[in-house]
């Protein structure tokens, strides 16, 4: 880059040193990226952050589920997998081993099931067994590049999947990407996960990003069976709890067992005065689907899990609204 001032007397002005030239180029690149981020902010209607305080609660499963469920409803959707050190979204979206296309300095996302656009660190790894060991500033640069240099096009929703905890990543995204609608906190009904979810809710206040609500994952496991018609069956559940169910006229019965605890996510949401978006059942199909790259919502679009996701999406859309100030006049 060179900037020429026609009024300046070039013969008297010393040329910029290579270091100054480099600094100017860096500043120019930074400014271009900032402008690109603002442009992206305008082109993407809604941005949803998905966080959890604790790892292993199924955050990436929920992120991909939300994205696919939104896509199922006809929205154009993208997922930004910001989990730099453990990116799993491409595998769940059937994009394992894919490479990103770069054209004129812009990164073009890969397209997974139902046309969902995906950007993930996994696309840049030579070998999936190679760990990414980056310190904060490098990670921060990569995240800014993932936001500013990606050609998302026009999107209705961008779902951003984070690593667990309250670290640099959400902070960087919240500071870089304008007009984030809010964050969805994923939890499981166990005390440690609920405790960490509370941290995430408090964290949202520091980031000044509203909490759209809490989703309870692995909420209950439904078992089904067949016996004589109109018979009472006693099922022994976790913790020695007995469940009495009656079969229908054809002898079918079903009961949902709370594998961990009941209603923890709802209680946490109520305690902090944030919406409870719904509970997602414990579904072994998610594990198989994640491993095979065919998400449960894609393989069974009318199944129980897809229905549960659809309800959560409805609750999120209700929170966001097309116009957030609708109905209330502020003067």
């Amino acid at each position, binding site marked *: 880059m060179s900037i020429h001032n026609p009024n300046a007397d070039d013969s008297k002005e010393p040329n910029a040193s290579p270091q100054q030239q480099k600094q100017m180029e860096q500043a120019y690149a930074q400014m271009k990226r900032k402008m690109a981020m603002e442009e992206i902010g305008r082109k993407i209607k809604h941005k949803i952050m998905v966080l959890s305080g604790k790892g292993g609660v199924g955050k990436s499963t929920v992120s991909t589920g939300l994205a696919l469920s939104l896509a199922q409803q006809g929205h154009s959707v993208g997922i930004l997998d910001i989990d730099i050190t453990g990116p799993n979204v491409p595998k769940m979206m059937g994009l394992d081993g894919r490479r990103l296309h770069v054209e004129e300095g812009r990164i073009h996302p890969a397209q997974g099931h139902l046309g969902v656009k995906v950007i993930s660190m996994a696309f840049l790894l030579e070998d999936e067994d190679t760990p990414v060991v980056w310190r904060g500033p490098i990670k921060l640069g990569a995240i800014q590049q993932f936001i500013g240099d990606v050609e998302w096009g026009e999107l209705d929703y961008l779902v951003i999947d984070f690593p667990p905890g309250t670290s640099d990543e959400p902070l960087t995204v919240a500071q870089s990407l304008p007009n984030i609608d809010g964050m969805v906190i994923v939890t499981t009904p166990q005390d440690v996960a609920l*405790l960490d979810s509370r941290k995430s809710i*408090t964290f949202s206040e520091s980031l000044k990003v509203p909490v759209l609500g809490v989703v309870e994952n692995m909420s209950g496991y439904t078992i089904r069976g067949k016996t004589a018609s109109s018979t009472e069956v006693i099922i022994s559940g976790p913790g020695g709890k007995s469940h009495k169910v009656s079969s229908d006229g054809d002898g079918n019965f079903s009961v949902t067992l709370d594998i961990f605890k009941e209603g923890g996510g709802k209680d946490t949401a109520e305690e902090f005065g944030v919406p409870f978006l719904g509970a997602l059942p414990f579904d072994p199909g998610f594990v198989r689907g994640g491993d095979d790259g065919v998400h449960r919502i894609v393989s069974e679009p009318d199944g129980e899990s897809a229905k549960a996701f659809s309800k959560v999406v409805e609750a999120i859309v209700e929170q966001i609204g097309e116009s957030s100030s609708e*109905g209330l006049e*502020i003067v």
Partner: protein
Amino acid sequence: MSKTIPELKRLERRDLDVLLSYDNDKNFVVTYDDIKHACPCAKCAPQRNEDESSRYLRREIEAMSPEKPKVKTVGKYAISFEWINGCSSGIYRFERIWALANKLDPDDGKSYVHGAW
């Protein structure tokens, strides 16, 4: 959280308070000092757990110069206030605003629980 309350239709920012109009045709006035004192954020809320720290918080708020805040909606469930002086982090659910309008305890008698961090 899921209490049924009338819908807030209009919020008028006045010099020292807000005038709230609900869809049941009732109007209420809530002072900015009351709003600031009821901030639900993790920094302010624990200060209301004890009478003494709550009184201290109140005195701090009352010592601030009066100002008209910026108000914006948060999703469809809450509003937030942006002050020059004082804490702007709190997200006020409509239930909290309704409680303040009706001179009820916005914390519903519950102390703020931090968890173990």
